[in-house]
């Protein structure tokens, strides 16, 4: 971890200079959205100040520069993921959610039929649930859920049976509620052995640990820029170029066509087919800068940093509030990310978050877009603290101070 220094990262994040209610901000909501470093903000700023133009069809210099910037971002994403087939399989979307809709409504519509099984898990985000329910309105899909154990992990005891007849396993790499990191590579191999394709929701993992698509050997991946130090308004859908080539168009309009007549149209080939309309150019530039920044930190370092903060926070919470504060997520081992869902006996997550706000601590109360998981554990909400590469044990100190206040306040 020699090259990684969270204090130095912190100095790169303008939003961490904020003071809230007289206290420096303690940002513990990176699981919802991360704070971009100066280099990301400045890259977009510079783009708008110098070279903004619409992409792809220009001949003049700034249009070429904008196109190079946009396509350069695509190449950077491919390299960042070590994507088989390179940039050809990278489609830019507005967020991870659109990427899942593209999966369900393009690949899914073309490849799934009545009775086919899609296997999800009980710890999925709504982004990886609702599009499948929507698809079921036209195709009689059998949507199954891998259960979650009382230890907050996938219950794989029945996995062979669950995988019978499965066409697609669509699974999160890391739960945004529990912090659980799932055994993606092993499950992908198992699913492939059953003839299924594998889609991975990397929203929580891609900015926090290394991703290597060649090694994982999966078929689809989707995530958002704003959870990996990048801007809002951009997400990524990745698939193998061979699969992409077979997918029918999704959103229609300019840019995704080869020809349009008054009697019909011919779609373009490759990723172009899936990028209708003027794309998120500045956002791609910002995402590229975020990737550069993360690569500079080293994703291994970021992951180790998350884990050390998490292990420390768990042991301090257990020590200081034993019995009173329950951590909804695995606590016993290192196979988890820096997401801590808290359940404080007798104090509602909203009230926790409110008391924490008073001293500048940002945590998120709610169901975290994972209602099936909340139901599984009989909870309506948790208060979730989550770390970023700029987080310090100092942040945990203030979190604990706030939890103590809330407990005292509500008695």
């Amino acid at each position, binding site marked *: 971890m020699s090259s990684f220094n969270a204090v130095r990262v912190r100095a790169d994040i303008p939003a961490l200079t904020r003071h809230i209610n007289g206290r420096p901000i303690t940002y513990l909501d990176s699981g919802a959205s991360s704070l971009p470093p100066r280099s990301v903000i400045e890259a977009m700023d510079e783009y708008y100040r110098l070279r903004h133009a619409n992409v792809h069809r220009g001949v003049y210099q700034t249009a070429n520069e904008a196109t190079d910037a946009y396509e350069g971002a695509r190449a950077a994403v491919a390299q960042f993921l070590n994507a088989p087939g390179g940039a050809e399989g990278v489609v830019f979307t507005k967020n991870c959610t659109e990427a899942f809709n593209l999966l369900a409504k393009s690949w899914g519509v073309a490849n799934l039929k009545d009775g086919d099984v899609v296997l999800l898990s009980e710890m999925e985000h709504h982004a990886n649930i609702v599009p499948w329910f929507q698809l079921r309105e036209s195709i009689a899909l059998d949507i199954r859920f891998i259960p979650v154990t009382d230890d907050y992990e996938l219950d794989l005891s029945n996995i062979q049976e669950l995988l019978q007849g499965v066409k697609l396993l669509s699974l999160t790499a890391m739960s945004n509620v529990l912090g659980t990191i799932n055994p993606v590579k092993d499950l992908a191999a198992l699913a492939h052995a059953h003839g299924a394709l594998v889609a991975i929701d990397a929203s929580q993992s891609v900015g926090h640990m290394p991703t290597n698509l060649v090694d994982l050997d999966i078929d689809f991946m989707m995530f958002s820029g704003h959870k990996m130090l990048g801007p809002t308004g951009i997400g990524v859908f990745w698939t193998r170029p061979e699969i992409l080539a077979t997918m029918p168009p999704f959103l229609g309009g300019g840019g995704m066509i080869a020809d349009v007549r008054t009697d019909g149209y011919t779609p373009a080939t490759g990723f172009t087919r899936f990028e209708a309309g003027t794309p998120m150019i500045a956002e791609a530039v910002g995402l590229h800068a975020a990737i550069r920044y993360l690569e500079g930190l080293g994703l291994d370092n970021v992951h180790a940093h998350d884990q050390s903060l998490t292990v420390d926070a768990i042991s301090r919470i257990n020590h200081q509030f034993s019995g009173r504060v329950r951590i909804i997520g695995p606590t016993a081992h290192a196979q988890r990310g820096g997401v801590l869902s808290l359940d404080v006996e007798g104090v509602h*997550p*909203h009230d926790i978050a409110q008391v924490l706000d*008073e001293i500048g601590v940002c945590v998120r109360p709610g*169901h975290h877009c994972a209602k099936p998981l*909340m139901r599984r554990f009989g909870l309506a*909400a948790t208060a979730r603290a989550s770390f970023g590469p700029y987080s310090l044990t100092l942040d945990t100190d203030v979190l604990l101070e706030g939890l103590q206040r809330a407990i005292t306040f*509500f008695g």
Partner: protein
Amino acid sequence: MSNLEELYKEIILDHYRTPRNRGELPPPASKTEGFNPLCGDELTVYLDVTDGVVSDIKITGHGCSISQASSSLMSVAVKGKTLAEVSEVLSKFKNMMTLEGEVVDLNDPSNREVLRSLGELAALQGVAKFPVRIKCATLAWNTLSQGLEEN
């Protein structure tokens, strides 16, 4: 008084810790469910309306201190009241809440009058300073409105 103390007045904490009129009512009492999709708060309001009077009210559900206290305070405020009185308190309460984000100017005599007439309910006035919590405070009242409409 800190912001927090303004939000969580003693009365609110009291109603949160010791909610009044908790429980269910058997039919023919009406039963209305309300929920706040953003935070997962859920509650059910049971209403017995006899001869134009809310003769009994009970509430179940879960939620934050504000939503719980607000529903408890609401139940006390409407129990035994005529429908006309209930509708008046409902509109006064909603008025107080829609001052979203603004601090009620207590030097304005008409505001003072409204708050006084709200009695204990006025304790919830601090919520208006916290726009995201307004939905918590109004959940019970919206559910009550709906229940009365269906009645």
